[in-house]
């Protein structure tokens, strides 16, 4: 592979992002979107070429670009590892990013921060590419943190909204808690291998698995388990796994293209990618994999439930993302890394599609996100409705749609796993299928079908207390408020990316299931130690996708999804009163769900308050009372005395005294020099 081409793939978006960011005024709006779109398109084409070369049998590329630093004989390098795993990620990242770039031209059309937005999403593409292409932990961490920063900036993109800047801060800090674990994991790897390279770490894995790390004078823990759990804590932050998931629903404060690009399709999957990439490490630690399994299963089921009670269309999809990330994590924990990456890819397409469709709805509804104020939109927005249906069908795992193949594989892999926690995980993922269908169809029905609830909604909309809070209101919003009318279908720059994403949402599963799951596509880039729970060879045969889908009808998940769909139809379309009745009957559960299991309450009212309390206590009690009060003011008499002396010296002359003293001192020394 040509190193220049590999270098160009991340650097083109970087250059475009920098130009759009620094020279936004110079090149103007059209200039900014042209240059960034072209750069990402070029990256996408080059990534596809790289993938094709690898498929044609080109060897894995693994080489440094430059030495970042050399400390204590440990070289820390920037370098690329491009194999089939990273190439697949590169294609997914650049393709979704390209769609979002194009979509943004329409979505952000009237936004005053237009060029800044393009700059950010190009920088994000660069950071994400650095992350997936890395061949070492240092660069991985760079990409990891850089995507976090861009995410922080983008969530808080509308910086005059207090809720948006709060959400950005929250996202960054929660991610930092994950990175806190991540950096310790990296330190552990360096401890055992004297290197930051993947190659060295993977080679040393069996040896690290035998080592112990003392955590107190009496106890030690298995070194590899410690390292893998630490690394996975990083993944929990980035991929929003319980309990570090709290930032993702709030991240919906950012513009919708961001929710699609960063908080659904690419950045949040970084943790999944990382664990898959580290499979040679994780495979040697049963303990860490069980941890992964349980965390993932918990996220998959319990976060999905939250989607059932949310009324904000973007938040429903956000909870769905949490739940689906849980599915990917479960797959990792069950050693089905291929299935996790497969689901990551299909999810990237259909979830980006769902978010962009939601964005289209939001535009059509004049920036209304509450589904209770929608309904019957299918008539006004046919393209959006159809594409959204496609995305939803893929999400719930309808046979033949892309999500079916990946989700079915995960459920099956978990069912076959004998790892500690697999039984619990199996129940979670099975029930999760029902829940997924329930909230997905609820969203479809409330948005696109049933009675139209928006005319009243518009009459009630102008909220006198809302407008003045944001003095610099989005131009887009102002415009839409002025032209409030019936919902309308979005322009072509919005619908074309929807269609472009709908196609892979249907087809990509059937097209790639054979090589990705059964054909050994990943080769050496994913390592599985115990081949005890293979998925069979059914899918590898010609036409396997067809038989897999037909086989799916003989298994439980499809019927669970169907049950979920019917429940949603009954409760939210046919007999809307039933939903309220259910909420009344199961009041405790409903309150728990509406309050998101009280995670936010706990973090804000307990943890954050505690941190501030500790800070104030140490400051007032430690610094001011103890240290200054006892130590310094213990000699306060001395201070007062010196102070009174100084006050007597007329401060106006103090300066010249001191200066001439210094010069005198210098002269004296010079005299010494000559005479002694």
């Amino acid at each position, binding site marked *: 592979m040509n190193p220049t081409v590999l270098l160009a793939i991340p650097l083109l978006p970087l250059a475009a992002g920098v130009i759009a960011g620094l020279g936004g005024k110079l090149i103007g709006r059209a200039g900014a979107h042209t240059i960034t779109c072209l750069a990402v398109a070029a990256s996408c084409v080059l990534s596809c070429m790289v993938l094709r070369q690898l498929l044609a049998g080109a060897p894995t590329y693994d080489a440094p670009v*430059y030495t970042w630093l050399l400390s204590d004989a440990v070289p820390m390098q920037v370098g690329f590892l491009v194999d089939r795993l990273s190439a697949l990620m590169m294609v997914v990242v650049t393709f979704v990013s390209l769609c979002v770039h194009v979509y943004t031209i329409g979505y952000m059309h009237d936004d005053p921060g237009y060029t800044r937005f393009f700059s950010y999403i190009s920088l994000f593409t660069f950071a994400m590419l650095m992350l997936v292409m890395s061949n070492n932990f240092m660069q991985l961490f760079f990409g990891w943190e850089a995507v976090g920063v861009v995410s922080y900036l983008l969530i808080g993109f509308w910086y005059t909204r207090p809720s948006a800047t709060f959400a950005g801060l929250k996202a960054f800090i929660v991610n930092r808690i994950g990175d806190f674990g991540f950096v310790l994991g990296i330190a552990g790897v360096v401890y055992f291998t004297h290197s930051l390279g993947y190659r060295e770490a993977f080679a040393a894995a069996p040896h690290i698995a035998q080592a112990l790390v003392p955590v107190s004078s009496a106890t030690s823990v298995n070194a590899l388990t410690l390292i893998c759990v630490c690394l996975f804590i990083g993944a929990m932050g980035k991929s929003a796994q319980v309990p570090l998931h709290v930032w993702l629903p709030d991240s919906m404060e950012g513009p919708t293209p961001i929710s699609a690009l960063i908080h659904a399709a690419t950045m949040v999957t970084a943790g999944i990618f990382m664990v898959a990439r580290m499979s040679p490490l994780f495979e040697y630690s049963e303990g860490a994999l069980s941890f992964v399994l349980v965390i993932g299963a918990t996220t998959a089921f319990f976060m999905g439930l939250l989607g059932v009670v949310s009324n904000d269309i973007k938040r429903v999809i956000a909870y769905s993302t949490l739940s689906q990330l849980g599915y990917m994590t479960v797959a990792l924990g069950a050693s089905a890394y291929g299935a996790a990456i497969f689901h990551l890819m299909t999810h990237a397409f259909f979830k980006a599609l769902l978010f962009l469709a939601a964005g289209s709805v939001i535009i059509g509804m004049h920036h209304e996100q509450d589904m209770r104020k929608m309904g019957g939109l299918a008539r006004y927005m046919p393209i959006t409705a159809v594409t959204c249906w496609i995305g939803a069908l893929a999400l719930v795992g309808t046979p033949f749609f892309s999500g079916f193949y990946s989700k079915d594989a995960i459920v099956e892999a978990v069912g076959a796993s004998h790892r500690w926690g697999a039984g619990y995980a199996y129940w979670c993922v099975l029930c999760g299928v029902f829940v997924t269908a329930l909230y997905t169809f609820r969203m479809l029905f409330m948005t696109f079908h049933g009675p139209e609830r928006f005319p009243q909604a518009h009459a009630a909309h102008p909220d006198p207390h809302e407008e003045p809070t944001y003095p610099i209101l989005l131009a887009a919003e102002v415009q839409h408020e002025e032209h409030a009318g019936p919902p309308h279908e979005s322009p072509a720059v919005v619908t074309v990316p929807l269609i472009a994403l709908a196609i892979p949402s249907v087809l990509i599963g059937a097209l790639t299931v054979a090589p990705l799951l059964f054909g050994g596509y990943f080769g050496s880039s994913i390592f599985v130690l115990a081949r005890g729970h293979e998925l069979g060879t059914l899918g590898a045969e010609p036409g396997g996708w067809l038989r897999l889908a037909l086989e799916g009808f003989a298994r439980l998940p499809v019927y669970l999804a169907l049950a979920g769909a019917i429940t949603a139809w009954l409760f939210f379309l046919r007999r809307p009163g039933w939903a309220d009745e259910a909420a009344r009957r199961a009041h405790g559960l409903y309150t728990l769900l509406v309050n998101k299991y009280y995670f936010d309450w706990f973090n804000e009212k307990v943890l954050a308050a505690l941190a501030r309390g500790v800070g104030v206590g140490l400051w007032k009690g430690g610094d001011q009372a103890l240290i200054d009060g006892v130590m310094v003011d213990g000699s306060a008499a001395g201070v007062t005395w010196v*102070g009174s002396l100084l006050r007597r010296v007329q401060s106006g002359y103090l300066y010249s005294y001191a200066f001439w003293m210094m010069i005198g001192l210098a002269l004296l020394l010079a005299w010494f020099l000559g005479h002694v």
Partner: protein
Amino acid sequence: MHGLLSILIWLPIAAGILVLLLGDARIGAGRWLALVASLTTLALAVPLWTHFDPGSAALQFPELAPWIPRFKAFYALGVDGISMPLIVLTAFMTVPVVIAGWSVIDMRPAQYYAAFLIMEGLMIGVFAATDALLFYFFWEAMLIPMFLIIGIWGGPRRVYATIKFFLYTFLGSVFMLAALIYMYVKAGDYSIASLQALPLTLIEQRWIFCAFLLAFAVKVPMWPVHTWLPDAHVEAPTGGSVILAAIMLKMGGYGFLRFSLPIAPDASRELDLLVIALSLIAVVYIGFVALVQQDMKKLIAYSSIAHMGFVTLGAFVVYEIVRHTGSLAGAGMGMDGAMVQMISHGLISGALFLCVGVLYDRLHSRQIADYGGVVNTMPVFASFMVLFALANAGLPGTSGFVGEFLVIIASFRASFWYALLAAVTLVLGAAYTLWLVKRVVFGPVVSPRVAGLKDLNGRETVVLGALAVAVLVVGVWPAPLLKVMQPTIQHLVSQAVASKL
């Protein structure tokens, strides 16, 4: 290149005296002279870097002249891999200070510029001196201009802050002087090399180590002798804060590396847990304290203390690494990290204080509550502020990451818990820095005064731009910096672990 160090020391001092003689009446000329002098010093620091032999741990650019023959004290200068980068940093950071004061200082401007120029020369002298008495001379002399800067151009409580600053630093230095004189009596001269080679018993080492610890811990500053710093920063004018944070705090770290470790290696090994504990307290305790500050300068001052904790941790974790692994591998990394952290903190804290200065010049308030939504009126400033804040939070790709990363990795070798506590800074550092940014920079415009803010002028943009470039370059490619330090650090590690008993 003979005499380069002398020029670097005395050129700014001479220029300072000249500015003083020109007086406030001819301050127009004085200002330009100050700028030209600081730029020339910086230009002369470039050959110091380019002609430095990165393959050697020996003292380079040596100069030797008799000074006080009666005490066998020499005017001896020279640099190695740890002092050279600090001299370049000093020369680099003085320029923004001169520019930042350009149209802001109305009161006694000649004396203001003179103080900074003279201080620059004296600080370079501290790093360049290879004779302990000469070092002490510069060490004490440099305090006088800073004392004046805070005492004259400072805020309302400047007298309190100045006295506190003076008492703390003076108290520490006295003990250092006593230790130096004791060793001079034994060794017969003041050359730092012969002090380092001087055989000392464990008892002697303990006393000397504690004397040095007092002097350097105050300067760093380490918990619990840190309380002078927030007060000094709050009262100091912007330029004073920049130099204080960027250079003066580094004197403490430099002192540990130059004196404590090589002169009292056995006592350092024995008392290393004390320093490590204080460093980790600085990172965690001070991190929490920074979180609740209402004053921007206080917040950055506390953040400085927490960041400097990495310097002392990186320097002293060496002994624990040897104790736990029985090998020297990783020891150099801790010291590398400590050095990079010093350089990086110099750039970032200096930049952040300049940012606060930009706001203070406009609204005359340092209270976080008085700001909010600055990005609406000062977008260029906001970009810089966010960049430096992220660097302060240790974002990879900026210089702030390099030192912390190296120290955390090295600490893991000593103990998982050291690494864990040090890594807490990832969370706390992000929390207090970005919360500051959220409250000051983002949000809606909170008041008519914020609405009337003017964005950066050309002068301010150049200053912050230069610092931004430096922060990014060190972050993206720290290899050259590490390279010049490498042999010196290796030599220092071998000195630090070689027993004198």
